[in-house]
């Protein structure tokens, strides 16, 4: 068993970064995720593993520092919260276009604009549909516990390098700030070799020069590049869909929720079962690729779905696409940093489906 600690979600991300063999973290402070960089600074990761830590002058600079490091094959990451992630979108689009592996953490707060520092899930569209300009996708992991905040860091890096694509951990202010027991994995070594087929570490006599770019002025070649990217995203859809089912097998009604909403709904399922309502919870762990097939297969046998989000309704669109009209898909969300209680969700379930 690994080392047990009581940690904040943000601290777990930071500790996991060092243990995952991350080479470089570039960040900029923003609530509610500043503990990531603060924890790293206190740990002095350059002494523990040789990991680079740099507080950049802006989120924009930070993501471009990630771009530079990632382009040399290093395991680089950044973290921020919603307004800061908006600033990073240009860089993220370039990272996706140039096919660079990296890890981006978004500890989501309420928007739009400066919004609030309270927790929210209103960056779902931005995370899963592209976010920046152009046709691209990030592989998006949605942790629902502090344990998953830690575990998704090495998983995120592995997936980023497997597909040479940016991976986003889409967390929220609750998961980032709350403290839970975490079992930490053992220290992993940092990479010492770099794939000479694409990294820019200096052209050696035994190979052609490597170029990191997202540009091609030839329309035919650019379209080909876009087709290659789409083929890669298709592979992610085939191989990387992750989800958790709680009491779904005999359910009449399935709640669909991710991250902190899923934690709330987990309790709702218990309360519903106590009242004799056969409720289940389907928790998408990857938001892209989305667990479309499993939702569609349940749509053949349940009476309805209720999607719960800390937003005004974003993931519900993907649930509706998956259900494809087979049964009713209802939505309930709170926003602005307001969090629904398990009882509140149960009432909505009863009102919308059972009539109460």
């Amino acid at each position, binding site marked *: 068993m690994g080392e047990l600690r009581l940690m904040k979600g943000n601290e777990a991300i930071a500790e996991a970064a060092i243990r995952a063999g991350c080479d470089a973290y570039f960040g900029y402070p923003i609530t509610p995720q500043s503990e990531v960089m603060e924890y790293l600074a206190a740990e002095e990761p350059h002494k523990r593993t040789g990991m680079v830590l740099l507080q950049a002058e802006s989120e924009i600079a930070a993501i471009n*520092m990630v*771009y*530079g490091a990632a*382009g*040399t094959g290093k395991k680089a990451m950044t973290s921020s919260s919603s307004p800061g992630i908006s600033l990073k979108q240009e*860089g993220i689009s370039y990272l996706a276009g140039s096919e660079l592996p990296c890890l981006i953490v978004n500890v989501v707060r309420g928007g739009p604009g400066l919004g609030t520092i309270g927790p929210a899930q209103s960056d779902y569209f931005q995370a899963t549909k592209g976010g920046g300009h152009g046709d691209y996708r990030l592989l998006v992991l949605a942790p629902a516990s502090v344990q998953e905040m830690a575990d998704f860091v090495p998983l995120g890096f592995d997936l980023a390098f497997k597909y040479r694509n940016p991976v986003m951990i889409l967390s929220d202010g609750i998961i980032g700030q709350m403290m839970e027991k975490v079992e930490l994995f053992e220290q992993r070594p940092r990479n010492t070799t770099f794939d000479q087929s694409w990294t820019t*570490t200096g052209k050696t006599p035994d190979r052609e*020069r490597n*170029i990191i770019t997202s540009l091609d002025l030839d329309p035919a070649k650019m379209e080909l590049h876009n087709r290659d990217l789409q083929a890669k995203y298709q592979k992610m859809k085939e191989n990387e869909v992750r989800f958790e089912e709680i009491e779904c097998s005999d359910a009449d009604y399935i709640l669909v929720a991710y991250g902190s909403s899923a934690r709330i709904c987990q309790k709702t399922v218990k309360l519903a079962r106590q009242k004799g309502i056969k409720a289940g919870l389907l928790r998408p762990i990857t938001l892209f690729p989305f667990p479309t097939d499993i939702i569609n297969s349940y749509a053949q046998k349940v009476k309805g779905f209720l999607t719960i989000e800390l937003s005004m309704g974003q993931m519900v669109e993907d649930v509706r696409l998956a259900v494809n009209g087979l049964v009713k898909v209802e939505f309930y969300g709170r926003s602005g940093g307001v969090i629904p209680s398990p009882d509140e969700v149960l009432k909505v379930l009863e009102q919308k489906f059972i009539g109460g």
Partner: protein
Amino acid sequence: MDVKDIIRDENLVYKRTKLLTDKPLSYCPGCGHGVVHRLVMEIIEEMDIVSDTIGIAPVGCSVLAYEFMDIDMQQVPHGRAPATATGIKRCWPDKFVFTYQGDGDLAAIGTSETIHACNRGENITIVFINNGIYGMTGGQMAPTTIPGMRSSTTPYGRDTSLMGNPLKMTDLVVHLPGTYFVSRQAVHTAVNVRKAKKALRMAFENQKLKKGTSFVEIVSNCPSGWKMTPVQANKWLEENMIPFYPLGDMKVNGEIVKQG
């Protein structure tokens, strides 16, 4: 003496560096980019550091620099080259990392990245091509367009009361504690090309010392954007750009030697 005699090895006084590719340059006739590309590649070849060098191409006319420079390169978002270079250099402190940026890239959209990389004293080389205009997008006003100078967005000349003042980035970075070497050069005459090469060489040599940022501005031309022939453009550069952007080393070995 026939051609065969002339091309004999012992008569060879100059040849193109092997670090320039065979691809025809996409730059307009008379443009200074080709010369600066050559100088940078000659220096990397002469220092024998190609296997340890990573270049950063900007957004602007030199966005395709990686097509002509036969070295490992990254092309980055507009203005962000010093941040990207920072990311590389922090991970690879013994490699040679340089950015190659135009005036719009470095002195407008990338002002923040430029100032902060220089102020932190990142051990990188910044090559800054200042031709006072946005060449790639068709000749609009740049942060470095001099007062009275025409561009497609200042068709009657830059009126500083309306459009603000040109930004002398090199004068600014010379005062930052992180810069170790700051120089402003030109490449419109053979003499200037030699001086520019000397400054650029020092800017790369300095990376071995790890004492801060080396920043070299090249005051250059843009015959197409300026609507001039190459000869006229070089004359105009001599008579108008250089008095506004005087040439010479401004900071050497961390000491200011000439105020901007």
